[in-house]
């Protein structure tokens, strides 16, 4: 599939490839009449045959086109060019947070809080519209040169929330415990924001060293989050954000944001300010990228086994019964003997 130099939909010229995800390639393009830069996301042909993925793509187009928020990438157009599905979006001159983290390793507390606040602002807006993103991760956050953060990819967003699907979709390292059981609501998004904040501060996700998806799943469902050790206040916030039970987390993006704003480092910030993120591209060199950080169909947990300690044989009850039995038997024999000998 080589689209470079071609014109899509009669008005968008494809200029260069700027990214590729699991199921689509993203190009930088230009509106040929307005000379306006755009980003064009084209679904890979191999996926166009899978109805559930086409459905996802259509869903992203429909959902995201209804959203109008300074921290959410805008959707301009959508179409089908000779069987290729494409989405035309606002072009952001910057990098994904994933790429920035790969270059920088980790960010300062102030930078991390600022990006988190902007993502929370976008989520507060989306959640109020009843939309759950379901796949919050650094790869879905773009940061431009001024430090403004944009949330991308509402591809697996679902109106409402809980569902009980047969398989879960998401990026395992960022998924909340309940998402592995096929359920997600706004608090699952807030969990993922917590994982992202954790990663910005420490350079890794809480259970990044798990050796496979099964261990990862197990640890997300059971293990406590190791503290970052950066700041007790931020650790308390992460502890709450990453609770296993949704009911113990922040109940809204606003509540999460307010907790962050109360931290000393956040002084002078507001709910929706942006501070430039230092871009040291090429200085540190690419860090090895995580293997699992792609959106995928995640199997629901298999049948599980349990073991519960048995109580030993109830000896006390047994002895009481035996003694009682002997007494009753002895007593009746005695009575019989007495009657016979009278």
């Amino acid at each position, binding site marked *: 599939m080589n689209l470079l130099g071609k014109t899509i939909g009669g008005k968008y010229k494809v200029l260069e490839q700027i990214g590729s995800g699991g199921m689509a390639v993203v190009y930088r393009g230009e509106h040929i009449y307005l000379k306006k830069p755009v980003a064009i996301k084209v679904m890979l042909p191999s996926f166009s045959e899978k109805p559930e993925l086409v459905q996802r793509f259509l869903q992203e187009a429909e959902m995201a086109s209804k959203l109008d928020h300074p921290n959410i990438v805008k959707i301009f157009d959508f179409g089908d060019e000779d069987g290729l599905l494409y989405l035309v979006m606002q072009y952001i001159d910057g990098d994904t947070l994933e790429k920035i983290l790969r270059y920088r390793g980790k960010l300062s507390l102030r930078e991390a809080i600022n990006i988190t606040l902007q993502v929370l602002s976008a989520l507060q807006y989306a959640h109020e519209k009843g939309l759950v993103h379901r796949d919050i991760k650094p790869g879905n956050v773009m940061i431009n040169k001024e430090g403004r953060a944009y949330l991308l990819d509402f591809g697996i967003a679902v109106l409402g929330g809980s569902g*009980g699907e047969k398989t879960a979709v998401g990026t395992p390292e960022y998924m909340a415990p309940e998402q592995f059981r096929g359920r997600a609501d706004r608090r699952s998004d807030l969990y993922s924001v917590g994982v992202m904040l954790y990663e910005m501060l420490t350079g890794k996700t809480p259970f990044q060293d798990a050796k496979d998806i099964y261990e990862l799943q197990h640890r997300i469902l059971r293990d406590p989050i190791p503290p970052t050790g950066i700041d007790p206040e931020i650790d308390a916030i992460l502890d709450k954000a990453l609770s296993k039970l949704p009911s113990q987390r922040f109940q809204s993006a606003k509540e999460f944001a307010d907790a962050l704003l109360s931290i000393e480092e956040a002084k002078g910030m507001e709910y929706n300010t942006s501070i430039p993120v230092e871009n040291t591209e090429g200085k540190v060199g690419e860090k090895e990228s995580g293997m699992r950080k792609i959106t995928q169909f995640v199997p629901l947990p298999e049948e599980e086994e349990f073991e519960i300690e048995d*109580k030993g044989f109830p000896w006390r009850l047994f002895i009481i019964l035996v003694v009682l039995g002997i007494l009753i038997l002895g007593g009746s024999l005695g009575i019989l003997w007495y009657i016979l000998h009278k």
Partner: protein
Amino acid sequence: MRGKFYGITDIGRVRNKNEDAYIINPFTGLFAIADGLGSRKAGDFASNYALEILDLELQKTLKTERNPKIALLKAFLNTSSAVFQKTTSSLELKGAMTTLTALLLSGSKWYIAHVGDTRAYLLRGKHLYLLTEDDTKAQLMVKQKLIKPHEALNHPARNILVRALGSKPLVKPHMYEGYISKGDKFLLASDGLYSYFSFRELFDYIRKYEPKPLLEKLRDIANERGGEDNLTAVAVEITDAPLYSTLLAHFQSFTFRRLI
């Protein structure tokens, strides 16, 4: 004792949100399902909230109480008051209620605390037993001797709930208990599932399948037959239990309500 378990919840084919939920905590031995009711957001909140609180409360009470039955009862009562407080404190959640059927496995015995029309079935040997009593109008009519017990299970009034968490500040659960036998199979199910099956069918499927394929089978059939409500089920199979409790359990079976 040792065993296997699986849980499933499905929105069904007609409703647009899932008010059913389940929770499993293999460490405490808690398996529970809930079917919420209420307007708009309220129903699914009540069921999920009740399960989360029950799980948390039980972790606490099991530490302080020696008798698992008392621990389960206390945790259930605390849950019922938490649900009432929460749903009456907000306008949006007003009127939200939920059923709750909780199975606790502990020390070679099972305990059930139950309110509502979600059910617990037990397959033991060649029989299927219904361990719980529905809190429905039909069941009340049985108690008043207006209809016969077997009529209640298919009576039109069997869908009318008379008790649920959230209706009163404190709702006392029905409590049941017994010994565990090797080979026991428990099925907790919401009405969205069990209404689609005859006792004979349930018996056949439970006997034939292990927890995961069983629940997938029941879900698919219920949806084929209409799927008019959310459905939820949890299946637990006991693969190993001590001999003495297996023996005692079989003596106890006579006291349960036998369906097949």
